[in-house]
């Protein structure tokens, strides 16, 4: 907390002494952190490099020439992952929201819809993703029915959407149920209908609440988008596999791994930035806490 510049206010000697002490302590802390970091890094680097297997590890996993050679293909593959991820994320959110809303509908007329949504969630949350991928990716085209896509990418994306929407629907439902009933009472007391209350009072707050959980699922999706490679789509994983076979070296896998990590880090930063916006976390009843020593 910074001290406001009130006119006519001069820091007391005692306060100046406190600040001197804090500055000195901060300098000392920085120095200690720096020293311990350098020391630990040195120990790790020396330890690893002097270990008997290191030259082979470096040759097999961290070969710069192989990394450079395989990078274009792996990157091209990653671009496919990104596109699959974005398209799937949009479809998943839409489908999951529809499922969550279907489950929150009241009234006897909606019973079949509620039951259907519940059944869908139970089924696709219980099925291993890899089974869904195999069934959809190899099973559907095998039916030779009209209008069924045959592209590995489309089928893989379909399987991802089927599986993930069940998870994300539950996230949305938890968010909807987590909004305090008093918010519903306030909206209904103003004369809003059930639907208007859901759309304007409950859902906006529910969505804000579940953004961190959704982000978690998005990161998970970005990695699972690599599973479409088992259907034959040449994504980052498959490209790395091909490059690994060509060079008889595992560095392309490491390259793909680093790229996936780099892909997910900005996602976390975006949510953090969102969460700092005023009125965004307010829905969670978050209080501004003071700094505690």
């Amino acid at each position, binding site marked *: 907390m910074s001290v406001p510049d009130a006119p006519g206010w001069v820091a007391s000697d005692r306060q100046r002494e406190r600040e001197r002490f804090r500055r000195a302590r901060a300098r000392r802390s920085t120095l200690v952190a720096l020293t311990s970091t350098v020391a630990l890094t040195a120990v790790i680097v020396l330890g690893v490099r002097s270990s008997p297997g290191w030259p082979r590890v470096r040759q097999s996993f961290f070969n710069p020439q192989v990394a450079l050679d395989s990078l274009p293909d792996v990157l091209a593959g990653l671009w496919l992952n990104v596109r699959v991820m974005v398209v799937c994320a949009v479809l998943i959110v839409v489908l999951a929201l529809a499922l969550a809303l279907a489950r929150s509908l009241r009234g006897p007329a909606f019973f079949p819809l509620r039951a259907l949504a519940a059944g869908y969630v139970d089924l696709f949350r219980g099925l291993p993703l890899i089974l869904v991928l195999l069934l959809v990716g190899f099973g559907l085209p095998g039916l030779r029915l009209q209008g069924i896509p045959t592209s590995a990418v489309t089928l893989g994306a379909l399987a991802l959407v089927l599986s993930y929407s069940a998870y994300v629907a539950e996230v949305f439902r938890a968010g909807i149920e987590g909004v305090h009933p008093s918010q519903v009472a*306030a*909206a209904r007391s103003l*004369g809003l209908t059930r639907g208007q209350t859901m759309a304007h*009072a409950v859902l*906006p*707050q529910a969505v804000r609440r579940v953004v961190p959980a959704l982000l978690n699922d998005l990161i998970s999706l970005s990695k699972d988008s690599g599973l479409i490679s088992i259907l034959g789509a040449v994504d980052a994983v498959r490209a790395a596999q091909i490059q690994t076979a060509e060079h008889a070296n595992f560095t392309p896998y490491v390259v793909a791994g680093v790229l996936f990590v780099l892909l997910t880090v900005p996602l976390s930063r975006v949510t953090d930035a969102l969460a700092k916006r005023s*009125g965004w976390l*307010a829905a969670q009843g978050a209080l501004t806490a003071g700094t505690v020593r």
Partner: protein
Amino acid sequence: MRRGPAAPAAPAGGGPLLRVQQVRKTFGTHVVLDGVDLDVEEHAVVVLIGASGSGKSTLLRCIDLLEEIDDGVIELAGTDIADPRLDADVQRARMGMVFQQYNLFGHLRVIDNLTLAPRLVHKVPADQARADALAMLDRVGLADKARAFPDELSGGQAQRVAIARALVGRPELLLLDEVTSALDPELVGEVLTLLAELKSTGLTMLLATHEMAFAREVADEVCFLHAGRVHERGTPAQVLSDPQRERTQEFLRRITG
């Protein structure tokens, strides 16, 4: 304001604006309201007092149709609003409700809290709703907070916004549920002052409160709720200063210490 000062439709046949007769409400086996009778005349302020759990909040929520009653009649300006054949949303829009914990929409700015219902329910054009809302905020002394989010307000400010939000739809009746109970003592005054001002404009109010001094000053009638019924009623002077029934005396002794 858009449609002049608070001027609800006169009740048919000149009866009270709100008539509550033999209202019963149970939660499971717990009987909360056991035949409540209550009238609120137009422009009157009726105060509900009673111990925690005496059914004050439940009664207000039943009147606002937030709870379904088990039996009895609730008439607003001659209409039996608890009739399931009526559109409850339309009936709710005729009343305003202010809650103990403000219940402002945390994701909306103050101005959007106020314009939400006019735009969605009353189909007021956006710029008109905005103008109405700003006028109402000005009336509660918070025009400068229009762009703030609810979590940036003090308790007293939040409650004044909640009152403004309930009023901007031009309710025929304003229901207030212990609107000062969540406030720090020094913030209670600003809300009570506002309510006294609203009374002077002729607004009809039914409120539950623990503020006996305020009830004495503003109420036209005080109703003491006990065991799910109106146990004693009368002017503030009668009920608060000269209670006739033992339970009322006991309650007043306890809260005044």
